[in-house]
């Protein structure tokens, strides 16, 4: 079943048409990558899917429900986690407090017990869950550090933990490896694979680094000037002349 489906979405900023009749569907359990040159509309499409900005026409379906007009917190509650291009975490909180806050947020809307309401400390099961998540992702050594002092890569990881603490069905990643060193990139790529394989989370990502995309993605969609150029498996995209044209330009002697 398609877990996330976009149907004929239009988006314009004033007279500028950024998305023209874009459609896509993401099967559950796959890693879906949206690629395209700068200005292709990747981030805008991403914003439409996450509810950050509304689209002018078309519909977004999440797990069969129309969420086109649903606000961000509603989508998060329905099981859509996300990260930002520049990692956004709660800077004043320690790593542990960041994760605890996220778990408590989830337990609140899922009406799960999160400790007695008068308790000042987080409930024991919340803390246990937080420690587990933090250890899994390899942030245990910095667990009590304030988030603002973390390195770039650790902030990114912390953002992953926060998003995963919601136990999402779909994880939306906006350029997860932007501005990272090659070693960190590989680490993040492994992490994404692990998230999908071990937790069964569907991943939708935009990405510039083709190595990462071809390594991870099951399906790839290529956008150019707000239109879908191609959509398919890695092999289809690699051999597709239209995609090469988008990235490399038309060959002059060919014309």
């Amino acid at each position: 079943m398609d877990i996330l489906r976009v149907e004929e979405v239009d988006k314009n900023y004033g007279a500028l048409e950024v998305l023209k009749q874009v459609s896509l569907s993401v099967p559950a359990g796959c890693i879906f990558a949206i690629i395209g040159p700068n200005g292709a509309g990747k981030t805008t499409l991403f914003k439409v899917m996450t509810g950050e900005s509304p689209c002018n026409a078309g519909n977004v379906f999440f797990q069969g429900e129309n969420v086109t007009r649903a606000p961000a917190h509603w989508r998060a509650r329905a099981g859509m986690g996300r990260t930002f291009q520049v990692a956004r975490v709660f800077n004043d909180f320690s790593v542990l407090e960041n994760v605890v806050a996220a778990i408590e947020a989830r337990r609140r809307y899922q009406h799960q017990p999160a400790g007695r309401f008068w308790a000042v400390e987080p409930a024991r099961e919340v803390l246990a869950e937080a420690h587990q998540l933090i250890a899994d992702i390899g942030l245990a050594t910095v667990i009590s550090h304030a988030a603002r002092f973390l390195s770039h890569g650790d902030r990114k990881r912390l953002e992953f933990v926060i998003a995963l603490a919601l136990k999402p069905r779909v994880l939306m990643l906006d350029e997860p490896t932007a501005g990272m060193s090659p070693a960190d990139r590989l680490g993040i790529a492994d992490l994404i694979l692990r998230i999908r394989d071990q937790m069964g989370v569907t991943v939708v990502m935009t990405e510039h680094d083709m190595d990462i995309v071809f390594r991870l993605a099951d399906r790839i969609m290529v956008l150019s000037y707000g239109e879908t150029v191609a959509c398919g498996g890695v092999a289809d995209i690699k051999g597709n002349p239209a995609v090469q044209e988008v990235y490399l330009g038309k060959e002059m002697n060919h014309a």
Partner: protein
Amino acid sequence: MATQLIFAIFNALSMGMAIFMVAAGITLIFGLLKILNMAQGAFFMIGAYIAFSLIDHQQLSLLAFIGVALLAGLGVAVLGLLTDRLILSRLRHVDYHYMLIATFALMMVCQGAVKLIWGVNFFSVMPPLVLDQPLQIGTLFLSRYSLFVIAAGLVIYVILEVAIHRLWLGKLMQSLASNPWMSGLLGINVSLGLTFSVMFAFFLAGLAGGLMLPLQSLSPQLGDAYLLYGFFAIIIGGLGNVRGALLGSILLGLVNSLNTILLPEWPGIAIYVVLAVFLFFRPEGLFPSLASQPQSAGEQGSSAMVGNKAHRPAWMVAGALVVVLAASLPLWANGGLLYVAGSAIVYGLFALSWNILFGYTGLASFGHSAFFAIGAYFTGVLLRDWPQVPFLLVLLGCAVFGAVVACLVGALALRRLAGIFLAVLTIALAEVTRLLISYSDFLGREDGLVGIPRPKLAWLGFDLDSSAAYYWFLLAAVVLLVAVLWWVLHGRFGRLLLITRQDPERAAFLGVNVTRVRTASFMLSGAVAAVAGGLYAPWARIVTLEQVSFLASTQPVLNAMLGGVHSFWGPMVGAVIFAVLEYGTRTFVGLSEIMVGALLLLIILAAPNGVVGLWRAWASRARTYRATQRPRETEPESGEPLRESR
């Protein structure tokens, strides 16, 4: 009928243009700096006073009059230069709330200064010679002077439109408004450009003050009404654009004109109703501009208010000592000191209620005195006229009343652009509360409620009639409330508030309904403020309109900032320090506004984290020093500077 209609429209236009002249300056500064200049009304007033001093009871020719207005504008522009260099330029890179509070403080300083220089008497000035007589058209008599104001407003509008969209100056301003950093890269002197633009906006305020001087009697309250109407006009018109400000102003003029015809006994109420309706149905204004897109707050917060537990026992002992000391006061202190102490306790609670909103949720209320007054008047009326109602029930009623009002205001203000709308709407709330009280006989109109009796706790057998008895009740009640709040704010709810303060968008993507959390926080804050007011009424035994003034609204802001907004105890500490200061300087009557405003400015510029922040910084330095003296024993953690005890 037709005459009446024309006359009403004429009045509407003349009032609308008057509002526009103030609103234009506000909207320019908003477009540039993304803040509402709360001091714009005060500088309008200063312009009027400068013009008044220049004219000095003579009747001038039209040209001389315009010259005087221009001079007044220049005078205020020079003040704008000072303001920008000394205050605004230093606050450009911090959370916009600090700039809002700074301009609010500046407004207080201006009002105090005007009172000192020109006194509190009303003055009036004759219009220039040519404009003195009314103009007769058929049976219609129109004031030539009002016509002149309308014309002046239109001329200013045209000049602004042309300057902003056609001239070099306007293009400079637009580039600074849209991206100061980029403008700097392109070789524009950003600092100079912003200063110049701010001066221009201040010039407009001063010019308007001069031009409209003959329209009204001059008093230190002159700026307040224009400031509010100016805010409303740009909210209705759309923040940050001149055309919206013009249309919004004219609309307000029309509404007010209709108000006087249809509801003569309730002057000035309709404007608030229209504002509420507008905010509900079209919160983005008539001409929404890019400048009004919500922005994420800057990185001002320096502590998460989740202290470590190592020092807790020591602090608990210290707290117990403070409570014992406070409880022993009635045994040895004189009546005056006891009164100050009781008031300080109430104001501490009041400041704490404000900081629930600011320090924990990242929203600032500038009319918190409204909640305090609601509680105080509610309690005062019940104690005077229905003494049989149990006092604890009355206090509960205060809390419910405050929470309901906060819920209504929150429903309007917290939908979009939360910070800025809340700032304006809370000011409006204080003003509406003041108006309604001054229209109500059973609330004592302008005179206030006097001779409020102290309550009896019948079923506990306590009579709280003596000052000492009520003081002890006050202390016990506040200690209990603070304990409950400490619990609430340090648990799950506190963490929820703190994540919405730090990054509302991130929190939303964690499934947090940000609007609801903010409304809940505002309701809690309003309820606590109302209870503080309810406790205050029988203590002071008199409640007056002063409790709803700007000065009263500044009190919790000042106390919280003084103590430190990034600490739970900061507001209480600030209230005590301020009470001591006030008690020490109680002989200097009339300086209160200047003192309060200047102190607030000083804190924001020099120590934005307040006394508690200074203490933490000192303690952290001392610890680092000790750690470097004995490097083998303890290894300083990199996260340590933030995790201070309270």
